[in-house]
């Protein structure tokens, strides 16, 4: 592993006004949604420049979420690996236990700004559902969360939290009953309710302006990491690692480093139980460019363009598509995308719990696993930052089930 400058022509000045990151992105949705997307794009541009909006959001992130999240040196994990220093960006310590709240507060504020009176959201692992329910409870907005019935089974604690905060949960029984089907149902709701409802998409996916807007709300992760590295190390990290499902924590972490060629960026997809179609959720590693959920990006699809079923033990990564900016970063060579299987992620989950006393989300455990491998090949005076995107409390029951242990 070297930190030699990379040859990449990736730009931070994307997307263009049509929502294109290079060739990727755009808008592939029914005409019914166009006006709402235009309105959202316009309001978001105004909000970006509006000091009052930014001040309110920053204030909430500080006092309600608990930002900035710490950058923590995982000393015993580093010693166990025996290579570069491993740092954890502790998004798991945010209110609601993951990075998702950074985005939902921003979009809930926009909902109010647009005069809309109802929120819908999709969720996979339930972290975005909880973060949406939280933001809506905070602002007094009614919230409906679409969640696949398979994910409801896998992530019961989050389902209960959402209900406690007054959200309605709509179980989705179509297709694979996971995140992808939840997105479809939320989009269908929005087709009928678009006049008074905002759809808070939870990742850097969907039609323009969502991939850009969600990235911007999540970019605080990377911005803080830069500052914290400057303060603590007096330089930027050598390598930054994050897990990629739809890709919002990774987009938020990577984006502020995109033009720092000396910083190696690694995205970790869910390798599931093997490399055959249907056994993993790694469209950047094994998929091809296509259209899903309103944008053009890498996707797991068959020869006809039908979306393939995917698998990951972690509900938050169990998605056949990926945000269009990741496709752009892949094709420009700026980010290296690799995959990590279920078993390796579970081992990393255990190792982090035992060496550091941190129970990571299964999603984030994929990034931990690969960061350990990467750090092992680097000298001890170099630094790897991993985005610890969420905490693992929600996964305890599912891990017990996978291991045949009683809870």
């Amino acid at each position, binding site marked *: 592993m070297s930190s030699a400058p990379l040859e990449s022509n990736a730009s931070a000045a994307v997307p263009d006004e*049509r929502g294109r990151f290079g060739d990727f992105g*755009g*808008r*592939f*949705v*029914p*005409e*019914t*949604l*166009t*006006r*709402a997307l235009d309105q959202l794009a316009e309001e978001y541009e105004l909000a970006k420049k509006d000091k009052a909006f930014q001040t309110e959001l920053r204030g909430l992130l500080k006092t309600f979420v608990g930002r900035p999240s710490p950058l923590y040196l995982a000393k015993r994990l580093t010693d166990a690996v025996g290579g570069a220093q491993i740092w954890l960006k502790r998004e798991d310590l945010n209110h609601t236990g993951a990075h998702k709240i950074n985005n939902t507060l921003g979009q809930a504020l926009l909902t109010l700004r647009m005069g809309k009176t109802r929120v819908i959201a999709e969720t996979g692992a339930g972290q975005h559902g909880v973060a949406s329910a939280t933001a809506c409870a905070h602002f007094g907005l009614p919230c409906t969360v679409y969640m696949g019935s398979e994910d409801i089974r896998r992530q019961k604690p989050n389902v209960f939290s959402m209900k406690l905060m007054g959200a309605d949960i709509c179980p989705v029984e*179509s*297709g694979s009953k996971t995140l*992808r089907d939840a997105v*479809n149902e939320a*989009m*269908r709701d929005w*087709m*009928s309710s*678009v*006049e008074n409802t905002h759809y808070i998409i939870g990742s850097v996916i969907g039609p323009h302006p969502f991939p850009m807007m969600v990235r911007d709300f999540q970019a605080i992760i990377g911005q803080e990491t830069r500052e914290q590295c400057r303060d603590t190390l007096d330089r930027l990290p050598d390598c930054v690692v994050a897990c990629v499902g739809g890709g919002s924590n990774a987009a938020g972490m990577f984006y502020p480093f995109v033009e720092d060629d000396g910083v190696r960026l690694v995205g970790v997809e869910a390798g599931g139980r093997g490399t055959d179609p249907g056994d993993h959720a790694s469209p950047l590693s094994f998929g091809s460019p*296509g*259209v*899903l*959920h*309103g944008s*053009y990006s890498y996707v797991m*699809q068959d*020869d*006809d*363009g*039908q*979306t393939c079923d995917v698998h990951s033990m972690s509900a938050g990564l169990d998605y056949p598509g990926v945000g269009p900016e990741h496709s752009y970063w892949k094709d420009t060579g700026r980010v290296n995308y690799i995959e990590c299987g279920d078993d390796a992620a579970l081992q990393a989950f255990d190792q982090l719990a035992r060496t550091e006393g941190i129970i990571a989300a299964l999603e984030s455990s994929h990034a931990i696993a690969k960061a350990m491998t990467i750090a092992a090949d680097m000298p001890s005076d170099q630094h790897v930052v991993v985005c610890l995107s969420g905490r693992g409390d929600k996964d305890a029951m599912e891990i017990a089930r996978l291991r045949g242990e009683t809870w």
Partner: protein
Amino acid sequence: MPFLTAGDPNIETTQAILKEIGSAGANLCEVGVPYSDPIADGPTIQASYQRALDNGFRLQHVFDMGAKLPADGMPLVTMVSYAIIFRTGLKQYVQQAKAAGYAGAIVPDLLVEEADEFAQVCRDADFSLIQLVTPTTPRERQVQIANSSSGFLYYVSVTGITGERVELPKDLTDNVQWLRSQTDLPICIGFGISGPETAAKLAPVSDGLIVGSAVVRRIAAAKDAAEATENVKSFVGELRQAIDNA
């Protein structure tokens, strides 16, 4: 103008129905290409897509079926997601569809801003690209869509997904009449039309009525291809009569 899902429950049934409904009074038929993730479709059509895909539907079946139908029959257009067209290749898709006897395509997730390349491919092949106007489309944009459309213009009656409705918006007639003053293209109305009563109300303001979920439901209720054909034929006959008497 009925809508059928290709391959629901199998491609032989779809073909049998298509052979018969022209004489029952259909002027044109929309052949829905099943897609795994349709955003604009309600539960009835979604379920029909799922049945077809579960029964091994492939895109090639739509082309093979088209080639087997009489060339002088009623015109057929496909309703197809851009995900499928893109994967097939824009030119490739149009060539194959045209060779199989299809007159055009309705692409519900291709917005006018993203349509330039495909519209050019369609124009070059003399293949219609039918675009959609909805109640949420601003008027200036409606004109822009009409100008880039060919064959006919598809007016979506409701703000929502496909499926039968008891009532349609009150301003629908006014909106369609305004659009008529802006374009020479025929204007057909779809989404939400449940039966002869709605058809009779809309017939005077439209050049065609697209009936999807109500047809698909009648196919799903049948025990075999013969009964499905009979169900659709008599329903199309009822619609025809209602339209002619309106």
